[in-house]
């Protein structure tokens, strides 16, 4: 295992006099296999950055153990952990050139100057910044600075690479480019990596595995497809993209809209009888003008244009269902307000709820998953 963290907890003093306590990380355990790239994904304030800083040794956990490459490093200071850390705001040494920045980790280890020169040149090549070595950080663009930060972190051959919202300070286009570039780079370098992000697309695009964090706790660990298709809780489902929440009824193997009992075609209940909650992603909703046996009738309530896609609100059996379609598809469909359409759910997740809808809603609310 590249990284193992076990039962990590961390409490911060908050408030004016430090009297209030805030549990930032609550008994978190997970591991990262050697050579894997794992994303810590969660909303801001969920404690994901704190976990990363604890792994790095920049923050001390109140309890728990950290192992890097099978070695217990819990009580080791940051500079003896053999890690590389990439900060959201680059944290480049402003008074040093690009070259000096990258060489820093090797120089403090007193490596021979020939080795340093070769290593820095190799890394300049890797991050495609050859020719920029004499510049100061202020003379670089955001994307270039972050690549220097990455080269600097990789220079002293770290065992583990930790990235804290590495693209958070960049604009959308540069961020997309850098993210896919990082994935390619990781395929090349194969260093055990953890990166923190609140951007799901980024996480889904580049991570081998995703650890979902909410309120200092792990919600779910899994490969991106698994998390997307089988969210383990409503939080996961709602965090991973907007999701439709439908309160339904399960009986005799089928699922029905609860209030008047129209069956949802093609849906099978997981065996339960009673009240269930259906989660359906907007992109998994489909409409047609023809009534086939796998569709239910509904109306178009609202159409919003969102630049690259359409967001459409439907009314189906008295429930509101949100649908997303990309621009071309949406225009070809030629929908109009109030129009009668036939709706199909291509894929959805079914959640059982023991105490009925009200009970599970209350529970989810108390957990802060829904409002």
């Amino acid at each position, binding site marked *: 295992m590249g990284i193992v963290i076990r039962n990590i907890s961390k409490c911060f003093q908050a408030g004016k006099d430090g009297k209030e306590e805030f549990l930032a990380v609550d008994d978190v355990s997970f591991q990262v296999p050697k050579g894997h790239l794992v994303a810590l994904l969660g909303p801001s304030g969920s404690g994901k950055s704190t976990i990363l800083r604890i792994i790095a040794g920049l923050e001390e956990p109140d309890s728990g153990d950290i192992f890097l490459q099978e070695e217990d490093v819990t009580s080791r200071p940051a500079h003896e952990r053999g890690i590389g850390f990439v900060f959201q705001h680059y944290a480049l*040494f402003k008074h040093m050139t690009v070259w000096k920045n990258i060489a820093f980790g090797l120089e403090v280890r007193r490596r021979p100057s020939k080795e340093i020169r070769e290593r820095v040149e190799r890394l300049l090549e890797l991050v495609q910044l050859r020719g920029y070595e004499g510049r100061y950080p202020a003379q670089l663009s955001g*994307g270039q600075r972050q690549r220097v930060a990455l080269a600097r972190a990789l220079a002293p051959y770290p065992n583990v690479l930790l990235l804290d919202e590495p693209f958070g300070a960049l604009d959308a286009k540069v961020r997309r480019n850098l993210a896919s570039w990082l994935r390619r780079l990781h395929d090349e370098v194969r260093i055990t990596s953890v990166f923190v992000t609140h951007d799901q697309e980024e996480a889904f695009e580049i991570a081998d595995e995703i650890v979902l964090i909410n309120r200092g706790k792990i919600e779910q660990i899994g490969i991106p497809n698994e998390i997307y298709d089988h969210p383990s809780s409503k939080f996961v489902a709602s965090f991973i993209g907007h999701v439709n929440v439908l309160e339904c009824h399960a009986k005799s193997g089928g699922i029905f809209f609860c209030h008047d009992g129209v069956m949802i075609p093609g849906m099978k209940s997981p065996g339960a009888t009673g009240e269930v909650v259906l989660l359906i992603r907007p992109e998994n909703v489909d409409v047609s003008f023809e009534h086939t046996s796998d569709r239910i009738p509904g109306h178009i309530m609202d159409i919003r244009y969102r630049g690259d896609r359409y967001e459409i609100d439907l009314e189906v059996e008295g429930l509101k269902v949100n649908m997303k379609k990309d621009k071309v598809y949406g225009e070809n469909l030629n929908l109009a307000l109030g129009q009668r359409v036939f709706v199909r759910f291509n894929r959805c997740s079914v959640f059982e709820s023991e105490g009925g809808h009200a009970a599970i809603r209350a529970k989810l609310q108390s957990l802060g998953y829904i409002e």
Partner: protein
Amino acid sequence: MAFEKSLAEELDTESHRPGAGQRLEFLKRNGVWGKRLFLSAVLAWFSFLVLFPVVEMILGAFRNGFVPFLTALQTPAARHAFWLTFWISVISVLVNTFFGLILALVLAQQDFRGKALVNGLVDLPLAVSPVVAGFMFIILFGKNGWLGHWFEQGGIQIVFAVPGMILATIFVSLPFVVREVVPVLKECGLEQEEAARTLGASRWHTFWRVTLPSIRWGLAYGITLTTARSLGEFGAVLVLSGSIIGSTQTATLHVHQEFNDFHFQGAFSASLVLAVVSFSLLIIMELLKKKQWMIGQGLRE
């Protein structure tokens, strides 16, 4: 390259500071005559306050020619006074740089109970009149003083001797390094230091290679201010020195003495030397301020 965003684009927002435009607008509205009137008023006030006294001092120093000017500076009393000022300043600057730096690091990077109080106390020497400060030291270190009694037994005299003058000078020049370094440290933040730590640098190493270089011009500015203050200190030193000629008389006290004795040549000459040193320090300060600004912007050395 797809990744690149031009530097110009990034720096562009800087040039559109709202204040600059407003000021220009104000001047335009008031026309050329308003501008001139404004300028001459400022110049007149400046001349009255600064230029005339300086010219008068220079004329005074060279009234009898260059030789008397030099002679006045070479009397044993004058030489000793400058020598003493030099050493008191050197010691004050060293002590205040060392402790000022530590205090600045603590104030900028740590949170603790009573931080606001310490923060306020640092400025106390600026608020308290130096004469009052001097008396505080006399009460504390005098024969019957709380600490003075203790030093007396060890055979060390502080009040009316050089150690007291050094203490007083350190006290009055204490805030400058702290006040100049804290904002620079705050602006730098902790991230660069954290980055250095993750790259394998020890605390010591991080301080020398990352922290100090990023605050060096701010620190130098603070040191320059400390030097200027130490050289020019009068009140506190006067109270604590007893002003014994050739023993506990600094340059400023020497000027005071010469003036009281109607030795105007001596007073003007020593004043001129002090003024020239101060003026040089002023120029150095301006340069340092610019350098620190450039470091803050991340532009070249």
